Protein backbone atom coordinates (compact mmCIF):
# COMPACT_ATOMS: atom_id res chain seq x y z
CA UNK A 1 0.00 0.00 0.00
CA UNK A 2 1.06 3.53 -0.68
CA UNK A 3 2.15 5.48 2.44
CA UNK A 4 0.17 8.56 1.39
CA UNK A 5 -3.00 6.53 0.91
CA UNK A 6 -2.45 4.73 4.20
CA UNK A 7 -2.03 7.96 6.17
CA UNK A 8 -4.99 9.58 4.37
CA UNK A 9 -7.17 6.59 5.22
CA UNK A 10 -6.15 6.70 8.89
CA UNK A 11 -6.71 10.44 9.12
CA UNK A 12 -10.19 10.07 7.67
CA UNK A 13 -11.10 7.17 9.94
CA UNK A 14 -10.58 9.31 13.02
CA UNK A 15 -12.57 12.39 12.05
CA UNK A 16 -15.15 13.67 14.50
CA UNK A 17 -18.93 13.92 14.08
CA UNK A 18 -18.77 17.30 12.32
CA UNK A 19 -16.18 15.97 9.88
CA UNK A 20 -18.27 12.85 9.28
CA UNK A 21 -21.34 14.96 8.59
CA UNK A 22 -19.59 17.27 6.12
CA UNK A 23 -17.98 14.21 4.47
CA UNK A 24 -21.43 12.68 4.08
CA UNK A 25 -22.74 15.88 2.48
CA UNK A 26 -19.78 15.88 0.07
CA UNK A 27 -20.30 12.20 -0.76
CA UNK A 28 -24.01 12.81 -1.43
CA UNK A 29 -23.16 15.80 -3.66
CA UNK A 30 -20.68 13.85 -5.78
CA UNK A 31 -23.08 10.88 -5.83
CA UNK A 32 -25.95 13.01 -7.19
CA UNK A 33 -23.66 14.63 -9.79
CA UNK A 34 -22.28 11.36 -11.14
CA UNK A 35 -25.73 9.71 -11.01
CA UNK A 36 -27.21 12.58 -13.05
CA UNK A 37 -24.34 12.34 -15.53
CA UNK A 38 -24.79 8.58 -16.04
CA UNK A 39 -28.58 8.86 -16.39
CA UNK A 40 -28.40 11.80 -18.79
CA UNK A 41 -25.82 10.14 -21.03
CA UNK A 42 -27.81 6.89 -21.01
CA UNK A 43 -31.05 8.64 -22.00
CA UNK A 44 -29.32 10.49 -24.86
CA UNK A 45 -27.71 7.21 -25.94
CA UNK A 46 -31.11 5.53 -25.72
CA UNK A 47 -32.77 8.12 -27.96
CA UNK A 48 -29.83 7.95 -30.38
CA UNK A 49 -30.12 4.16 -30.53
CA UNK A 50 -33.86 4.36 -31.09
CA UNK A 51 -33.29 6.89 -33.86
CA UNK A 52 -30.67 4.62 -35.38
CA UNK A 53 -33.08 1.69 -35.18
CA UNK A 54 -35.99 3.63 -36.67
CA UNK A 55 -34.07 5.31 -39.48
CA UNK A 56 -32.29 2.08 -40.37
CA UNK A 57 -35.69 0.39 -40.49
CA UNK A 58 -36.72 3.00 -43.03
CA UNK A 59 -33.59 3.53 -45.10
CA UNK A 60 -31.14 0.86 -43.96
CA UNK A 61 -27.87 1.69 -42.23
CA UNK A 62 -26.09 2.36 -45.50
CA UNK A 63 -27.24 3.37 -48.95
CA UNK A 64 -25.38 2.65 -52.19
CA UNK A 65 -26.48 5.11 -54.86
CA UNK A 66 -27.06 4.46 -58.56
CA UNK A 67 -26.71 0.71 -58.60
CA UNK A 68 -28.17 -1.23 -61.49
CA UNK A 69 -30.96 -3.56 -60.43
CA UNK A 70 -29.11 -6.43 -62.12
CA UNK A 71 -25.96 -5.88 -60.06
CA UNK A 72 -24.58 -9.14 -58.67
CA UNK A 73 -24.98 -8.93 -54.89
CA UNK A 74 -23.04 -12.10 -54.05
CA UNK A 75 -19.86 -10.26 -53.07
CA UNK A 76 -21.75 -7.69 -50.98
CA UNK A 77 -23.69 -10.40 -49.18
CA UNK A 78 -20.42 -12.06 -48.18
CA UNK A 79 -19.39 -9.04 -46.09
CA UNK A 80 -19.59 -9.88 -42.41
CA UNK A 81 -22.22 -7.85 -40.54
CA UNK A 82 -24.45 -7.30 -43.59
CA UNK A 83 -27.77 -8.95 -42.75
CA UNK A 84 -30.00 -7.76 -45.60
CA UNK A 85 -30.03 -5.80 -48.86
CA UNK A 86 -32.93 -4.15 -50.67
CA UNK A 87 -33.16 -2.16 -53.89
CA UNK A 88 -35.22 1.02 -53.68
CA UNK A 89 -35.99 3.88 -56.04
CA UNK A 90 -36.99 7.29 -54.76
CA UNK A 91 -38.70 9.89 -56.93
CA UNK A 92 -40.82 13.00 -56.34
CA UNK A 93 -44.44 12.69 -57.37
CA UNK A 94 -48.02 13.69 -56.70
CA UNK A 95 -50.77 11.87 -54.86
CA UNK A 96 -54.34 13.06 -55.23
CA UNK A 97 -57.81 12.10 -54.30
CA UNK A 98 -61.07 13.70 -55.39
CA UNK A 99 -60.61 16.96 -53.57
CA UNK A 100 -56.94 17.54 -52.87
CA UNK A 101 -53.43 16.60 -53.87
CA UNK A 102 -50.00 16.63 -52.35
CA UNK A 103 -46.35 16.52 -53.38
CA UNK A 104 -44.71 13.41 -51.96
CA UNK A 105 -41.67 11.20 -52.37
CA UNK A 106 -42.38 7.75 -53.76
CA UNK A 107 -40.18 4.97 -52.49
CA UNK A 108 -40.40 1.95 -54.75
CA UNK A 109 -39.44 -1.25 -52.98
CA UNK A 110 -39.99 -4.97 -53.14
CA UNK A 111 -43.07 -5.36 -50.91
CA UNK A 112 -41.81 -8.77 -49.82
CA UNK A 113 -39.06 -6.89 -47.98
CA UNK A 114 -41.51 -4.66 -46.15
CA UNK A 115 -41.50 -6.72 -42.99
CA UNK A 116 -38.09 -8.35 -43.19
CA UNK A 117 -36.04 -5.28 -44.09
CA UNK A 118 -38.05 -2.12 -43.47
CA UNK A 119 -40.10 -3.15 -40.48
CA UNK A 120 -42.08 0.10 -40.22
CA UNK A 121 -45.05 0.28 -37.84
CA UNK A 122 -48.17 0.28 -39.98
CA UNK A 123 -51.81 -0.64 -40.12
CA UNK A 124 -53.42 -2.31 -43.12
CA UNK A 125 -52.75 -5.17 -45.48
CA UNK A 126 -50.10 -4.97 -48.16
CA UNK A 127 -50.25 -8.48 -49.53
CA UNK A 128 -51.61 -6.95 -52.70
CA UNK A 129 -48.78 -5.31 -54.66
CA UNK A 130 -51.27 -3.08 -56.44
CA UNK A 131 -51.90 -1.05 -53.31
CA UNK A 132 -49.73 1.62 -51.71
CA UNK A 133 -48.53 2.50 -48.23
CA UNK A 134 -48.73 6.13 -47.16
CA UNK A 135 -47.50 8.11 -44.16
CA UNK A 136 -49.92 8.91 -41.36
CA UNK A 137 -49.53 12.69 -41.84
CA UNK A 138 -50.22 12.49 -45.57
CA UNK A 139 -53.35 10.46 -44.80
CA UNK A 140 -54.52 13.07 -42.27
CA UNK A 141 -53.78 15.99 -44.59
CA UNK A 142 -55.60 14.47 -47.54
CA UNK A 143 -58.32 12.85 -45.44
CA UNK A 144 -57.42 9.39 -46.68
CA UNK A 145 -58.20 6.05 -45.08
CA UNK A 146 -57.33 2.44 -45.88
CA UNK A 147 -59.16 1.30 -48.98
CA UNK A 148 -59.59 4.79 -50.47
CA UNK A 149 -58.85 5.26 -54.13
CA UNK A 150 -56.08 7.68 -55.14
CA UNK A 151 -54.21 8.66 -58.24
CA UNK A 152 -50.45 8.77 -58.10
CA UNK A 153 -48.43 10.46 -60.82
CA UNK A 154 -44.80 11.15 -61.59
CA UNK A 155 -44.31 14.45 -63.50
CA UNK A 156 -40.74 13.40 -64.33
CA UNK A 157 -42.03 10.47 -66.30
CA UNK A 158 -44.09 11.57 -69.30
CA UNK A 159 -46.20 8.86 -70.82
CA UNK A 160 -46.98 10.48 -74.16
CA UNK A 161 -45.72 13.06 -76.60
CA UNK A 162 -48.38 15.45 -75.25
CA UNK A 163 -46.40 15.69 -72.01
CA UNK A 164 -48.96 14.22 -69.62
CA UNK A 165 -47.30 12.81 -66.54
CA UNK A 166 -47.30 9.10 -66.04
CA UNK A 167 -50.15 8.22 -63.62
CA UNK A 168 -51.84 5.23 -62.06
CA UNK A 169 -55.02 4.63 -60.14
CA UNK A 170 -54.50 2.67 -56.94
CA UNK A 171 -55.85 2.09 -53.43
CA UNK A 172 -54.50 2.78 -49.97
CA UNK A 173 -53.37 -0.58 -48.62
CA UNK A 174 -51.81 0.69 -45.39
CA UNK A 175 -50.82 3.70 -43.33
CA UNK A 176 -47.47 3.87 -41.55
CA UNK A 177 -46.49 5.99 -38.58
CA UNK A 178 -42.73 6.03 -38.25
CA UNK A 179 -42.59 9.35 -36.32
CA UNK A 180 -39.13 9.98 -37.76
CA UNK A 181 -38.45 13.57 -38.76
CA UNK A 182 -40.98 14.48 -41.54
CA UNK A 183 -41.07 10.98 -43.03
CA UNK A 184 -44.78 10.42 -42.25
CA UNK A 185 -45.57 13.56 -44.19
CA UNK A 186 -43.26 12.83 -47.08
CA UNK A 187 -43.06 9.18 -48.08
CA UNK A 188 -45.34 6.90 -50.03
CA UNK A 189 -44.21 3.30 -50.44
CA UNK A 190 -45.12 1.71 -53.75
CA UNK A 191 -44.47 -1.81 -54.95
CA UNK A 192 -42.33 -2.71 -57.93
CA UNK A 193 -45.56 -3.52 -59.80
CA UNK A 194 -46.88 0.04 -59.52
CA UNK A 195 -43.41 1.57 -59.86
CA UNK A 196 -42.86 -0.14 -63.17
CA UNK A 197 -46.17 1.34 -64.39
CA UNK A 198 -45.39 4.99 -63.63
CA UNK A 199 -41.60 5.30 -63.68
CA UNK A 200 -40.50 5.26 -67.32
CA UNK A 201 -37.63 7.68 -67.11
CA UNK A 202 -34.52 5.66 -66.32
CA UNK A 203 -32.26 8.66 -65.78
CA UNK A 204 -31.80 7.82 -62.10
CA UNK A 205 -30.89 4.30 -61.09
CA UNK A 206 -32.10 2.60 -57.93
CA UNK A 207 -30.21 2.63 -54.64
CA UNK A 208 -29.32 -0.39 -52.60
CA UNK A 209 -30.31 -0.14 -48.93
CA UNK A 210 -27.97 -2.10 -46.65
CA UNK A 211 -28.78 -3.31 -43.18
CA UNK A 212 -26.05 -4.42 -40.78
CA UNK A 213 -26.09 -6.33 -37.51
CA UNK A 214 -23.55 -4.26 -35.56
CA UNK A 215 -23.81 -0.48 -35.79
CA UNK A 216 -20.33 -0.02 -34.33
CA UNK A 217 -18.94 -1.63 -37.53
CA UNK A 218 -20.71 0.89 -39.78
CA UNK A 219 -17.56 2.61 -41.03
CA UNK A 220 -15.74 -0.66 -41.58
CA UNK A 221 -18.64 -2.10 -43.63
CA UNK A 222 -18.91 1.14 -45.60
CA UNK A 223 -15.24 0.95 -46.52
CA UNK A 224 -15.59 -2.68 -47.62
CA UNK A 225 -18.64 -1.84 -49.75
CA UNK A 226 -16.80 1.10 -51.36
CA UNK A 227 -13.92 -1.23 -52.24
CA UNK A 228 -16.35 -3.65 -53.91
CA UNK A 229 -18.68 -1.30 -55.80
CA UNK A 230 -15.94 1.19 -56.71
CA UNK A 231 -15.77 4.91 -56.13
CA UNK A 232 -18.26 5.61 -58.94
CA UNK A 233 -21.10 4.61 -56.64
CA UNK A 234 -21.44 6.85 -53.63
CA UNK A 235 -21.97 4.99 -50.37
CA UNK A 236 -23.26 6.88 -47.34
CA UNK A 237 -24.66 6.06 -43.96
CA UNK A 238 -27.89 7.27 -42.39
CA UNK A 239 -25.71 9.39 -40.08
CA UNK A 240 -24.15 11.15 -43.07
CA UNK A 241 -27.54 11.62 -44.64
CA UNK A 242 -28.83 13.18 -41.40
CA UNK A 243 -25.58 14.90 -40.47
CA UNK A 244 -27.29 17.94 -38.93
CA UNK A 245 -29.48 15.79 -36.70
CA UNK A 246 -26.59 13.57 -35.65
CA UNK A 247 -24.32 16.52 -34.87
CA UNK A 248 -27.19 18.11 -32.88
CA UNK A 249 -27.47 14.93 -30.80
CA UNK A 250 -23.71 14.86 -30.27
CA UNK A 251 -23.76 18.53 -29.28
CA UNK A 252 -26.60 17.88 -26.87
CA UNK A 253 -24.67 15.01 -25.35
CA UNK A 254 -21.57 17.16 -24.91
CA UNK A 255 -23.71 19.97 -23.50
CA UNK A 256 -25.28 17.57 -21.00
CA UNK A 257 -21.90 16.32 -19.85
CA UNK A 258 -20.67 19.90 -19.38
CA UNK A 259 -23.82 21.17 -17.66
CA UNK A 260 -24.21 18.16 -15.38
CA UNK A 261 -20.52 18.27 -14.54
CA UNK A 262 -21.33 21.61 -12.93
CA UNK A 263 -23.24 19.67 -10.26
CA UNK A 264 -19.99 17.89 -9.53
CA UNK A 265 -18.12 21.21 -9.52
CA UNK A 266 -20.59 22.54 -6.93
CA UNK A 267 -20.24 19.32 -4.91
CA UNK A 268 -16.46 19.78 -5.08
CA UNK A 269 -16.80 23.06 -3.20
CA UNK A 270 -18.35 21.07 -0.39
CA UNK A 271 -15.44 18.61 -0.63
CA UNK A 272 -12.98 21.53 -0.33
CA UNK A 273 -14.63 22.69 2.89
CA UNK A 274 -14.66 19.12 4.24
CA UNK A 275 -11.00 18.64 3.39
CA UNK A 276 -10.11 21.99 4.96
CA UNK A 277 -11.95 21.00 8.12
CA UNK A 278 -10.30 17.59 8.30
CA UNK A 279 -6.84 18.96 7.52
CA UNK A 280 -7.29 21.70 10.10
CA UNK A 281 -8.04 19.02 12.70
CA UNK A 282 -4.96 17.12 11.63
CA UNK A 283 -2.66 20.10 11.24
CA UNK A 284 -0.53 19.12 14.23
CA UNK A 285 -0.04 15.62 12.83
CA UNK A 286 0.88 17.02 9.44
CA UNK A 287 3.37 19.30 11.21
CA UNK A 288 4.83 16.25 12.96
CA UNK A 289 5.12 14.40 9.66
CA UNK A 290 6.92 17.40 8.14
CA UNK A 291 9.34 17.51 11.07
CA UNK A 292 10.25 13.84 10.72
CA UNK A 293 11.09 14.32 7.07
CA UNK A 294 7.95 14.35 4.98
CA UNK A 295 8.19 16.89 2.19
CA UNK A 296 5.46 19.17 0.85
CA UNK A 297 4.75 17.00 -2.20
CA UNK A 298 4.05 14.05 0.10
CA UNK A 299 1.73 16.17 2.27
CA UNK A 300 -0.08 17.33 -0.86
CA UNK A 301 -0.49 13.70 -1.93
CA UNK A 302 -2.02 12.81 1.46
CA UNK A 303 -4.58 15.62 1.14
CA UNK A 304 -5.36 14.63 -2.46
CA UNK A 305 -5.81 11.02 -1.36
CA UNK A 306 -8.20 12.14 1.37
CA UNK A 307 -10.19 14.01 -1.27
CA UNK A 308 -10.09 10.99 -3.56
CA UNK A 309 -11.34 8.67 -0.82
CA UNK A 310 -14.30 10.96 -0.04
CA UNK A 311 -14.95 11.75 -3.71
CA UNK A 312 -14.63 8.19 -4.96
CA UNK A 313 -17.22 6.99 -2.44
CA UNK A 314 -19.70 9.46 -3.93
CA UNK A 315 -18.54 8.75 -7.46
CA UNK A 316 -18.85 4.98 -7.28
CA UNK A 317 -22.16 5.17 -5.43
CA UNK A 318 -23.49 7.55 -8.11
CA UNK A 319 -22.28 5.35 -10.96
CA UNK A 320 -23.62 2.25 -9.20
CA UNK A 321 -27.07 3.79 -8.67
CA UNK A 322 -27.00 5.10 -12.25
CA UNK A 323 -26.19 1.69 -13.76
CA UNK A 324 -28.73 0.00 -11.47
CA UNK A 325 -31.44 2.44 -12.56
CA UNK A 326 -30.63 1.77 -16.23
CA UNK A 327 -30.76 -1.98 -15.59
CA UNK A 328 -34.12 -1.68 -13.79
CA UNK A 329 -35.57 0.59 -16.48
CA UNK A 330 -34.52 -1.77 -19.25
CA UNK A 331 -35.95 -4.79 -17.45
CA UNK A 332 -39.06 -3.43 -15.75
CA UNK A 333 -39.75 -0.38 -17.95
CA UNK A 334 -41.08 1.68 -15.03
CA UNK A 335 -40.67 5.04 -16.83
CA UNK A 336 -43.13 5.24 -19.70
CA UNK A 337 -43.44 7.88 -22.41
CA UNK A 338 -46.48 9.19 -24.28
CA UNK A 339 -46.05 7.23 -27.51
CA UNK A 340 -47.96 9.78 -29.59
CA UNK A 341 -45.16 12.29 -28.90
CA UNK A 342 -42.03 10.19 -28.69
CA UNK A 343 -42.77 7.24 -30.97
CA UNK A 344 -41.66 4.91 -28.17
CA UNK A 345 -43.45 3.64 -25.15
CA UNK A 346 -40.69 3.52 -22.57
CA UNK A 347 -37.73 5.75 -21.81
CA UNK A 348 -34.78 4.22 -23.66
CA UNK A 349 -31.56 4.00 -21.62
CA UNK A 350 -28.23 2.72 -22.91
CA UNK A 351 -24.82 3.07 -21.31
CA UNK A 352 -21.49 1.83 -22.64
CA UNK A 353 -18.13 1.16 -20.98
CA UNK A 354 -16.75 4.19 -22.79
CA UNK A 355 -19.46 6.40 -21.28
CA UNK A 356 -18.71 5.12 -17.78
CA UNK A 357 -15.03 5.83 -18.45
CA UNK A 358 -15.89 9.41 -19.47
CA UNK A 359 -17.93 9.90 -16.27
CA UNK A 360 -15.09 8.49 -14.15
CA UNK A 361 -12.43 10.62 -15.87
CA UNK A 362 -14.48 13.84 -15.59
CA UNK A 363 -15.23 13.18 -11.92
CA UNK A 364 -11.72 12.10 -10.97
CA UNK A 365 -10.31 15.19 -12.69
CA UNK A 366 -12.58 17.48 -10.65
CA UNK A 367 -11.99 15.61 -7.39
CA UNK A 368 -8.19 15.62 -7.81
CA UNK A 369 -8.24 19.32 -8.67
CA UNK A 370 -10.31 19.87 -5.52
CA UNK A 371 -7.69 18.04 -3.46
CA UNK A 372 -4.88 20.10 -4.99
CA UNK A 373 -6.76 23.35 -4.27
CA UNK A 374 -7.60 22.21 -0.73
CA UNK A 375 -3.96 21.32 -0.06
CA UNK A 376 -2.60 24.63 -1.30
CA UNK A 377 -3.55 26.60 1.81
CA UNK A 378 -1.80 24.20 4.16
CA UNK A 379 1.37 23.85 2.15
CA UNK A 380 2.26 27.45 2.89
CA UNK A 381 2.21 26.83 6.63
CA UNK A 382 5.56 26.38 8.35
CA UNK A 383 5.80 22.96 10.10
CA UNK A 384 6.75 24.52 13.45
CA UNK A 385 3.80 26.87 13.11
CA UNK A 386 1.57 23.83 12.62
CA UNK A 387 2.69 22.45 15.97
CA UNK A 388 2.32 25.80 17.73
CA UNK A 389 -1.18 26.13 16.29
CA UNK A 390 -2.34 23.38 18.58
CA UNK A 391 -0.08 24.22 21.49
Amino acid at each position, binding site marked *: *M*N*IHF*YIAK*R*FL*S*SINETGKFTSLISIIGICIGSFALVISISVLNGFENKLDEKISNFDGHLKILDLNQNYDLTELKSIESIIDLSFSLQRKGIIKNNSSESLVTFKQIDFDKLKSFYNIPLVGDLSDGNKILIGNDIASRLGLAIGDEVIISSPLDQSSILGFPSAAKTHIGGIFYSKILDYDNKFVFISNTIGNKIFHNNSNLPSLDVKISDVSKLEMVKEKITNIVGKGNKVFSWKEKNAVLVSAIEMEKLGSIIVLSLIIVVACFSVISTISLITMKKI*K*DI*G*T*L*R*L*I*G*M*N*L*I*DVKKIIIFQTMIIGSKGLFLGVFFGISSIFLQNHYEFITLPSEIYAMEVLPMVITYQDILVVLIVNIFFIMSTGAIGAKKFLKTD*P*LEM*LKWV*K
Partner: protein
Amino acid sequence: MGKIIIESKGLVKSYQNGKNRLIVLDNINIKIRENNIITIIGESGSGKSTLLNVLSSLDVFDKGDLVIEGNNIKNFSEQQLSLVRNSSIGFIFQFHHLLPDFNVRENILMPTWISKGYGIDEKVDELLDGFGLIKLSHKYPNEISGGEKQRVAILRAIINNPKVLFADEPSGNLDEKNSLKLIDLFESINRDYGTSIVLTTHNPHIANMGNENYELKSKTLFKR
Protein backbone atom coordinates in the same frame (compact mmCIF):
# COMPACT_ATOMS: atom_id res chain seq x y z
CA MET B 1 38.29 14.41 18.25
CA GLY B 2 35.46 13.02 16.16
CA LYS B 3 34.42 14.18 12.75
CA ILE B 4 32.25 17.33 12.63
CA ILE B 5 28.65 16.53 11.67
CA ILE B 6 27.02 19.92 12.19
CA GLU B 7 28.77 23.27 12.35
CA SER B 8 27.20 26.67 12.79
CA LYS B 9 29.11 29.85 11.97
CA GLY B 10 27.86 33.20 13.19
CA LEU B 11 24.19 32.18 13.19
CA VAL B 12 21.71 34.96 13.81
CA LYS B 13 18.00 34.40 14.32
CA SER B 14 15.41 37.08 14.87
CA TYR B 15 11.64 37.46 14.93
CA GLN B 16 9.48 40.30 13.75
CA ASN B 17 7.91 42.04 16.71
CA GLY B 18 5.56 44.70 15.42
CA LYS B 19 7.74 47.16 13.53
CA ASN B 20 10.92 45.97 15.23
CA ARG B 21 13.02 42.87 14.81
CA LEU B 22 13.78 40.99 17.97
CA ILE B 23 17.08 39.15 17.86
CA VAL B 24 16.90 35.92 19.88
CA LEU B 25 20.14 34.25 18.80
CA ASP B 26 23.25 36.16 17.96
CA ASN B 27 26.55 34.88 16.60
CA ILE B 28 26.01 31.23 17.45
CA ASN B 29 29.12 29.15 16.81
CA ILE B 30 29.06 25.47 17.66
CA LYS B 31 30.56 22.26 16.32
CA ILE B 32 28.68 19.02 16.87
CA ARG B 33 31.06 16.12 16.47
CA GLU B 34 30.21 12.47 16.05
CA ASN B 35 29.64 10.28 19.08
CA ASN B 36 29.36 13.26 21.39
CA ILE B 37 26.84 14.42 24.00
CA ILE B 38 26.23 18.17 24.18
CA THR B 39 24.03 19.85 26.75
CA ILE B 40 22.71 23.37 26.57
CA ILE B 41 21.39 25.00 29.70
CA GLY B 42 19.59 28.27 29.88
CA GLU B 43 16.80 30.10 31.59
CA SER B 44 13.25 29.79 30.38
CA GLY B 45 12.74 32.04 27.39
CA SER B 46 16.47 32.30 26.68
CA GLY B 47 15.99 30.77 23.20
CA LYS B 48 17.04 27.16 23.81
CA SER B 49 14.19 25.70 21.76
CA THR B 50 14.80 28.18 18.95
CA LEU B 51 18.49 27.26 18.94
CA LEU B 52 17.68 23.56 18.68
CA ASN B 53 15.12 24.19 15.94
CA VAL B 54 17.63 26.22 13.93
CA LEU B 55 20.51 23.76 14.41
CA SER B 56 18.27 20.85 13.41
CA SER B 57 17.05 22.64 10.25
CA LEU B 58 13.47 22.80 11.51
CA ASP B 59 13.59 26.58 11.54
CA VAL B 60 15.27 29.14 9.30
CA PHE B 61 17.95 31.64 10.35
CA ASP B 62 18.73 35.19 9.21
CA LYS B 63 22.50 35.25 8.95
CA GLY B 64 25.47 32.93 9.16
CA ASP B 65 26.07 29.43 7.89
CA LEU B 66 24.88 26.02 8.97
CA VAL B 67 26.83 23.08 7.59
CA ILE B 68 25.32 19.62 8.01
CA GLU B 69 27.48 16.68 6.91
CA GLY B 70 29.58 18.99 4.75
CA ASN B 71 26.65 20.75 3.07
CA ASN B 72 25.75 24.35 3.77
CA ILE B 73 21.98 24.12 4.09
CA LYS B 74 21.44 27.88 3.74
CA ASN B 75 20.15 27.55 0.19
CA PHE B 76 18.66 24.07 0.48
CA SER B 77 15.25 23.51 -1.08
CA GLU B 78 12.31 22.33 1.01
CA GLN B 79 12.79 18.83 -0.38
CA GLN B 80 16.50 18.75 0.49
CA LEU B 81 15.72 19.96 4.01
CA SER B 82 13.09 17.25 4.40
CA LEU B 83 15.69 14.67 3.41
CA VAL B 84 18.13 16.03 6.01
CA ARG B 85 15.42 15.90 8.70
CA ASN B 86 14.51 12.38 7.72
CA SER B 87 17.95 10.83 7.44
CA SER B 88 20.61 12.85 9.27
CA ILE B 89 18.70 14.26 12.21
CA GLY B 90 16.42 12.93 14.90
CA PHE B 91 14.31 15.22 17.04
CA ILE B 92 12.59 14.60 20.36
CA PHE B 93 10.02 17.15 21.43
CA GLN B 94 9.04 17.97 24.95
CA PHE B 95 5.44 17.11 24.09
CA HIS B 96 6.42 13.97 22.12
CA HIS B 97 4.16 14.78 19.16
CA LEU B 98 3.22 11.19 18.48
CA LEU B 99 0.60 10.59 15.80
CA PRO B 100 -2.62 9.64 17.64
CA ASP B 101 -4.11 7.67 14.72
CA PHE B 102 -1.18 5.27 14.52
CA ASN B 103 -0.09 2.66 17.04
CA VAL B 104 3.31 2.60 18.73
CA ARG B 105 4.90 0.41 16.09
CA GLU B 106 3.56 2.55 13.24
CA ASN B 107 4.68 5.75 14.97
CA ILE B 108 8.20 4.41 15.28
CA LEU B 109 8.23 3.20 11.68
CA MET B 110 6.89 6.44 10.19
CA PRO B 111 10.33 8.00 9.34
CA THR B 112 11.34 4.72 7.63
CA TRP B 113 8.08 4.62 5.67
CA ILE B 114 8.62 8.23 4.57
CA SER B 115 12.07 7.42 3.21
CA LYS B 116 11.70 3.81 2.05
CA GLY B 117 7.97 3.28 1.55
CA TYR B 118 5.10 1.78 3.50
CA GLY B 119 5.52 -1.77 4.74
CA ILE B 120 9.25 -1.72 5.47
CA ASP B 121 9.66 -2.82 9.09
CA GLU B 122 13.38 -3.42 9.45
CA LYS B 123 14.89 -2.83 12.88
CA VAL B 124 11.62 -1.99 14.63
CA ASP B 125 11.22 -5.24 16.58
CA GLU B 126 14.83 -5.11 17.72
CA LEU B 127 14.32 -1.55 18.97
CA LEU B 128 10.98 -2.26 20.63
CA ASP B 129 12.50 -5.26 22.38
CA GLY B 130 15.63 -3.39 23.38
CA PHE B 131 13.68 -0.56 24.93
CA GLY B 132 11.11 -2.76 26.64
CA LEU B 133 8.22 -1.58 24.48
CA ILE B 134 7.39 -4.75 22.57
CA LYS B 135 4.18 -5.30 24.59
CA LEU B 136 3.02 -1.82 23.68
CA SER B 137 3.65 -2.12 19.97
CA HIS B 138 -0.05 -2.28 19.07
CA LYS B 139 -1.24 0.27 21.57
CA TYR B 140 -2.16 3.79 20.57
CA PRO B 141 -0.52 6.91 22.09
CA ASN B 142 -3.59 7.66 24.22
CA GLU B 143 -3.27 4.22 25.80
CA ILE B 144 0.28 4.62 27.14
CA SER B 145 1.93 6.69 29.89
CA GLY B 146 3.98 9.86 29.48
CA GLY B 147 7.26 8.00 30.08
CA GLU B 148 6.32 5.38 27.50
CA LYS B 149 5.40 8.10 25.02
CA GLN B 150 8.82 9.63 25.58
CA ARG B 151 10.54 6.33 24.77
CA VAL B 152 8.39 5.82 21.68
CA ALA B 153 9.34 9.34 20.54
CA ILE B 154 13.03 8.47 21.09
CA LEU B 155 12.72 5.27 19.04
CA ARG B 156 11.00 7.18 16.24
CA ALA B 157 13.85 9.68 16.30
CA ILE B 158 16.59 7.06 16.04
CA ILE B 159 15.04 4.48 13.69
CA ASN B 160 16.63 5.99 10.60
CA ASN B 161 20.10 6.00 12.27
CA PRO B 162 20.50 9.78 12.43
CA LYS B 163 23.94 11.21 13.04
CA VAL B 164 22.62 13.67 15.62
CA LEU B 165 19.68 13.44 17.99
CA PHE B 166 18.23 16.72 19.25
CA ALA B 167 16.13 16.67 22.40
CA ASP B 168 14.27 19.75 23.53
CA GLU B 169 13.75 19.71 27.30
CA PRO B 170 13.25 15.95 27.30
CA SER B 171 12.97 15.81 31.09
CA GLY B 172 10.57 18.74 31.28
CA ASN B 173 7.54 16.63 32.10
CA LEU B 174 9.33 13.89 34.04
CA ASP B 175 10.01 13.40 37.73
CA GLU B 176 13.54 12.95 39.12
CA LYS B 177 13.48 9.15 38.86
CA ASN B 178 12.32 9.11 35.25
CA SER B 179 14.75 11.93 34.39
CA LEU B 180 17.62 9.72 35.56
CA LYS B 181 16.29 6.83 33.52
CA LEU B 182 16.15 9.15 30.51
CA ILE B 183 19.80 10.15 30.97
CA ASP B 184 20.75 6.47 31.04
CA LEU B 185 18.74 5.97 27.87
CA PHE B 186 20.51 8.80 26.04
CA GLU B 187 23.90 7.50 27.18
CA SER B 188 23.08 4.03 25.93
CA ILE B 189 21.90 5.39 22.57
CA ASN B 190 25.13 7.37 22.27
CA ARG B 191 27.17 4.33 23.23
CA ASP B 192 25.31 1.63 21.27
CA TYR B 193 24.42 3.52 18.08
CA GLY B 194 27.19 6.15 18.02
CA THR B 195 24.55 8.88 17.75
CA SER B 196 25.59 12.35 18.92
CA ILE B 197 23.07 13.92 21.28
CA VAL B 198 22.29 17.59 21.71
CA LEU B 199 19.84 18.38 24.46
CA THR B 200 18.54 21.47 26.15
CA THR B 201 17.57 21.56 29.79
CA HIS B 202 17.22 23.80 32.77
CA ASN B 203 18.01 20.88 35.10
CA PRO B 204 21.63 21.36 36.32
CA HIS B 205 22.02 17.65 36.97
CA ILE B 206 21.22 16.74 33.37
CA ALA B 207 23.25 19.70 32.14
CA ASN B 208 26.41 18.08 33.47
CA MET B 209 26.00 14.76 31.68
CA GLY B 210 27.51 15.95 28.40
CA ASN B 211 31.03 15.77 27.02
CA GLU B 212 30.52 19.41 26.13
CA ASN B 213 28.28 21.65 28.16
CA TYR B 214 27.05 25.04 26.98
CA GLU B 215 25.01 27.84 28.43
CA LEU B 216 22.76 30.06 26.34
CA LYS B 217 22.94 33.52 27.83
CA SER B 218 22.41 36.97 26.37
CA LYS B 219 21.43 35.46 23.00
CA THR B 220 24.72 33.64 22.52
CA LEU B 221 26.38 30.37 23.51
CA PHE B 222 29.10 30.05 26.11
CA LYS B 223 31.07 26.93 26.87
CA ARG B 224 30.83 26.00 30.53
